[in-house]
């Protein structure tokens, strides 16, 4: 789930996408000009099993958008036995955008405030037992942890995608530790309210 409190589903689309797919593609092009399929292959190496959930068409759609915005330049390259292919190259504006992205320290994260307010409101209104809400949330996160951990264990030693999965595991552990603190607090409040 995107947020710890389980944000409502956004409009459905086939597969997942990187939040900053434009910047990621631009950054991948900063090293060398590439075909769309080369970019997809590099995403697949970096994301490992997570690349399977990506919408494959999104790379091409995004490249077209970037071209229109003047951030990349496309050149048609003829092939003997197949239709022409486009090779994409970063423009000066595109490079500026990459620099900006690399320096940006904003950190997308599940904000605890929403879940916290859920517990406060549930307790105040007598709508539900906050401890039970915490238990349900904990199980949802543990199911995610189980999936991330199994996927990580299946990765070969030294896999770069394994590093990403380790990040998922560590963040879930931190969230679970906070839920533990929530459970303790609301358990102690129950004792006081009796």
């Amino acid at each position, binding site marked *: *789930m*995107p947020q710890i409190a389980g944000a409502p*589903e*956004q*409009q*459905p*689309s086939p*597969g*997942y*996408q*990187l*939040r900053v797919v434009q910047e990621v593609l631009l950054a991948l092009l900063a090293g060398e000009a590439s075909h769309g399929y080369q970019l997809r292959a590099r995403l697949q190496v970096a*994301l490992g*099993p*997570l690349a*399977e*959930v*990506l919408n494959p068409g999104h790379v091409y759609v995004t490249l077209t958008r970037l071209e229109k915005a003047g951030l990349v330049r496309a050149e048609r390259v003829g092939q003997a036995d197949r239709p022409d292919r486009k090779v994409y190259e970063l423009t000066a504006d595109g490079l500026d955008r990459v620099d900006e992205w690399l320096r940006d320290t904003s950190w*997308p994260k599940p904000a605890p405030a929403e879940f916290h307010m859920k517990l406060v409101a549930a307790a105040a209104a007598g709508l539900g037992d906050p*401890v*039970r809400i915490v*238990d*349900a949330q*904990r*199980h*949802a996160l*543990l*199911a*995610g*942890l*189980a*999936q*991330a*951990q*199994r*996927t990580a*264990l299946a990765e070969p030693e030294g896999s770069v995608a394994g590093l*990403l*999965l380790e*990040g*998922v*595991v560590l*963040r*879930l*552990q931190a969230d*679970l530790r906070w839920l533990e603190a929530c*459970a*303790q607090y609301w*358990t102690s409040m129950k004792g006081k309210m009796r």
Partner: protein
Amino acid sequence: MTTGSLSYVGPVLRARGLEKHYGHGGGAVRALQAVDLEVATGETVAVMGPSGCGKSTLLHLLGGLEQPSAGEVWLAGTRIDGLGEKALAQLRRHALGFVFQAFHLMDELTAVENVELPALLAGRPPRTARLRAEELLDQVGLIERSQHLPSALSGGERQRVAIARALSNDPSVVLADEPTGNLDSAATRDVLRLLDRLRVAGQTLVVITHDARIAATADRLVSMRDGAFVEETRLTHGTTGPLGALAGLEH
């Protein structure tokens, strides 16, 4: 132990209406209240809950280490609550494997001698017991440590020896109580890899743990509060699911 367990099909471990009270009258503590649990053959179940929620008591009752105040415990088709001490000892030796937080290895025995001990006590021929012990030490990645005394092993290595020992008699069920409670994060990682392999290999296992990563190795997770089950979740679904969102990908 009564026989008939070989032909038994169904949950290998079953608890019904389990209760455990300590003390009497107004000061009585109800450690466990009306707990029902079924564990299928080959299933791994993790039990989580705060200190004092009754999870250790549950494990003790399941393993015949304590008697319930009410309710039934069935292991491979045999009702084990109410069995005499001798029958219970026999049962623990043949059908159960235990893993404890504090390892409980014999200090004066080498790793391989610790692992083969349950098989020897159960009357297996020494040669068979030794070969099986070596095979198990190999599986837990400690074959080159087989002649070491526990004092020469790290905490993580000791626990892996203890897990190998728990498997020595090919038990129907392994019961583990906080297996990583005394371990650092690197050793915990080794144990969780091992537990994941046991799950894949189809070893029936009930593990009590505070550690989210250990709990996440199980097929099923149960949470306890105040002596009762409050939440239950199957952790092995398909391979797709929330992982993309957890990694920060968007729909």
